């Protein structure tokens, strides 16, 4: 990193971060309390308990009865060594049939309540009231359709059909909403209102890490149809990134399709860059070189994220004896996030930039960096996750920044895997939200990342 530039940014980062944190709604204060369940607070402190709760959340959809639910719950909790008194009481309730029914009902209700904070509706139609409210509050959205894993061609077709329907629903609904000038135009031109995030792993059952072309070939027709539809509806299509096993397949597929002549003048589309990957700077090279030689009416949107598959990547690499592809120290990852932020902002207008982070420091850095580069607020987007980053999103919107909320839509059954990942992220040891919730001083939260080199 260029030390001089970084140092001169620091006062501005602190100023921006402080202003943002003051914009957090004081009545909630603590983002962890958003998960009103006391269980989450407990879970954050006890690894065994956390494991038990996650396993329970994970299995809820497969349970056939309240009795079955309670049997699972007590079975998981039975493996926790240091049981808080409330859990011991729950275990005793599980000894009788009536008790199990009550316990099962309470457990299921708890999980459902938690799920509703993250999942905005069973389908796009049901999500519309929330999406309208967000829009009115100056926050755009990207809808993500949750579902079962795709293991068959029929399931891939079903997911593609759901995406098509969602595009229709969203485009029609957003067309009737009032103007929000900040959300609708940046220096590169108009920004579509309707925005859908899709997963290539759901568009094909044939993603093979060692044979990316198989999944690409199979997903291409489905993705191409969605791109055509998005273009016709003037909607934005964002292609999510998943684990490293599928990165090559996903990135190549998207860049190849978008380079096809029919997509030169639309739709607006985007990809994701995962800053936790050690080789993410090279991936950004690939993206920028592509953008440079592929003129499009609407620049590619690059959403910069930390990455949500950290545990998976570490475990997979360790089991195979591979070098771990992700940064193992939070400071290194944060520093890379900032370096990529800088490169992306400097690469405009070749690409549009979306900074998707709940880390106050990363966000403040992006804002400060944008100012340093004389960028306008509308020329960088900030993305937050529904249910986790709501306060940050509101604070950003209140300070005149362009914000988009990533909104999962789908039934609770299919959404559980997503939910578990979000919960894990939120209670992880090095979670920014957990730090913030547990009163780590603002100065420390806004300090430059400590790197290992």
């Amino acid at each position, binding site marked *: 990193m260029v030390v001089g530039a970084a140092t001169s940014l620091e006062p501005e980062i602190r100023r921006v971060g402080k202003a943002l944190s003051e914009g957090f709604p004081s009545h909630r204060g603590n983002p962890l309390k958003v998960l009103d369940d006391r269980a989450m607070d407990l879970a954050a402190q006890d690894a065994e308990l956390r494991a038990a709760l996650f396993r329970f959340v994970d*299995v809820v959809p*497969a349970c*056939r009865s309240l009795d079955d639910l309670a049997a699972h719950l007590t*079975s998981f909790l039975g493996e926790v060594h240091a049981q808080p008194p409330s859990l011991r009481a729950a275990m005793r309730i599980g000894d009788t049939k009536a008790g199990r029914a009550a316990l099962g009902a309470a457990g299921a209700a708890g999980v459902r309540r938690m799920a509703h904070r993250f999942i905005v509706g069973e389908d796009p139609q049901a999500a519309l009231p929330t999406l309208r409210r967000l829009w009115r509050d100056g926050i755009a959205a990207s809808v993500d359709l949750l579902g079962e*894993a795709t*293991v*068959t061609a029929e*399931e891939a077709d079903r997911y593609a059909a759901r995406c098509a329907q969602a595009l229709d629903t969203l485009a029609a609904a957003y067309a009737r909403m009032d103007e929000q000038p900040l959300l609708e135009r940046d220096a590169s031109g108009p920004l579509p209102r309707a925005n859908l995030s899709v997963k290539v792993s759901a568009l094909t059952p044939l993603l093979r890490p060692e044979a990316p072309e198989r999944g690409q070939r199979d997903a291409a027709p489905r993705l191409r149809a969605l791109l055509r539809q998005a273009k016709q509806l003037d909607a934005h299509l964002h292609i999510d990134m998943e684990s490293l096993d599928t990165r090559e397949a996903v990135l190549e597929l998207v860049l190849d399709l978008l380079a096809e002549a029919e997509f030169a003048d639309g739709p607006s589309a985007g990809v994701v860059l995962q800053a936790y990957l050690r080789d993410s700077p090279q991936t950004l090279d690939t993206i920028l070189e592509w953008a440079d030689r592929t003129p499009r009416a609407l620049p590619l949107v690059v959403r910069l994220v930390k990455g949500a598959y950290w545990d998976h990547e570490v475990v997979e690499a360790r089991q195979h004896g591979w070098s771990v592809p992700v940064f193992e120290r939070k400071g290194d990852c944060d520093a890379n996030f900032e370096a990529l932020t800088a490169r992306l902002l400097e690469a405009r207008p070749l690409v549009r930039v979306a900074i998707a982070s709940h880390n106050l420091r990363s966000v403040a850095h992006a804002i400060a960096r944008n100012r340093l580069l004389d960028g306008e607020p509308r020329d960088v987007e900030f993305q937050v996750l529904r249910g986790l980053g709501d306060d940050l999103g509101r604070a950003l919107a209140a300070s005149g920044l362009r914000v988009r909320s990533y909104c999962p839509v789908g039934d609770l059954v299919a959404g559980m895997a997503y939910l578990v990942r979000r919960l894990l992220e939120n209670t992880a040891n090095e979670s920014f939200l957990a730090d913030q919730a547990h009163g780590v001083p603002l100065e420390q939260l806004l300090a430059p990342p400590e790197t290992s080199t």
Partner: protein
Amino acid sequence: MTTLPPFRNEPVLELRRATERSKLAVGLGELRLPLKVPVWIGREQRFGDELVSTDPGRPERIVALAAAASAEEADAAVATAQAAFGRWAATPVHERAAALLRAAAWMRERRASLAALALRECAKPWPEADADVCEAIDFLEFYARGALELQDPDGSQLLQVPGERNELRYVPRGVCAVIAPWNFPLAIPTGMTAAALATGNTVVLKPAEQAPGCGMRIVEALRAGGVPAAAIALLPGGGETGAALARNPAVATIAFTGSGPVGLELLRSAAEVAPGARQLTRVVAEMGGKNCIVVDSDADLDEAIPAIVESAFHYAGQKCSAAARVLAHEALHDALVERLAGAVAGLQVGPADDFGTDVPPLIERDAQQRVQRYAAIAGESGEIVTGEHDVPGEGWYVAPVVAAGLPPDSRVLREEVFGPLLTVESVRDVDEAMDRIDGLPVALTGGLFSRNPRTVQRVIERSPVGNLYINRSTTGAMVGRQPFGGNRLSGTGTKAGGREYLLHFVEPRVVTENTVRHGLVV
């Protein structure tokens, strides 16, 4: 020798990266075929072409031309190994271990070309061929360390009282005949051979008749590593060669991996004490299975389906660990069958050298016909839920098949098919599934998908299998992590890649010395 670093598995290639994939393609390009494989006893080589191994995906492509060892040659090989035994047994264990480690290094330097050979000779798709080389290296590294530990005098656990000194030592048994299969053409023969050599036995290796080329590479590696030529012979050949070895009274140990009938025949013939024999023949046998995966009602099908597909269809189901039966809770049986059938419909049947291939050809025409026969039986008495499949015309390909609704007494539910044929049964609950599994005479691997810790515990207690896998695929056992081997008629209860495996290749000897002289402890 200085102390060795702790064992770690040789990492498989990270084939999700294009750079790694291209390394393997180079290995294939450099492969010069056909190989000429001799009967190789001491320094004597006799070449021939009585045995021909071909590419199962393109049978006119000859991979190796091999001499087939006659009964006389088998006896000569055993005699040579017998003569070399005393010296190899007396070689200090750390020198024997060092030779194995150098053989491992030899293989490590040739990973791509060895994988390419396994790919061509046995139609192992790239990831599996690479894993086969890695496992061969693992066995060499693991047993080298194991032999050193076995000779560690501090490891003796005998009680000591004043006035006597007790010592337990392990000594090699003599000549070991290794009779190897083709389905892990590098790993399994290397494993059995390395175990015997590490502990001081000499070896006559008979590779599978379908894989003489791979067998030759193993012997080259060991000799290049410093194993004396007389201590490791290569004896390509068919069943008669194996039978000749088994009959020879000078063979002290038979290490066998292969089919049940052959294994049982070896056990029978080994039990006959030949006139003039001075030792009982020990048989270490790994045989077949009928491996079952139980899916309880609370299983996550998103994870179970891909794991079942991998277990049943990777390498066209030609692994002793492959899943043959799924026993699914009635609550999700229908959903499972539908999703499984859909997933199998997407599998690509094709040549092993295509990275996109899911199901490669079977090893030979007989295997192809056998699987087709069983599929026909399954179709007559039950329902084939998978549809038509594009299958290349040339080569020993068969389409992957899922059959459901078979009668409980169906042969297809009991006999080992050893191919891409999977059956699904509906069960009332996990206990019924366990009853059915308990009715089988074989017990190699098993699987369970359940998210209830109590169910998991119950199945662990009831399962008879040698290797039980919970919430994952049933294949891919790793040296040192999942010591592998079956119970009941699946094998002699040994665990390849486990610490106790070497004990089958040695004899324990106990020495007790009286240390009292004239009433004094000296």
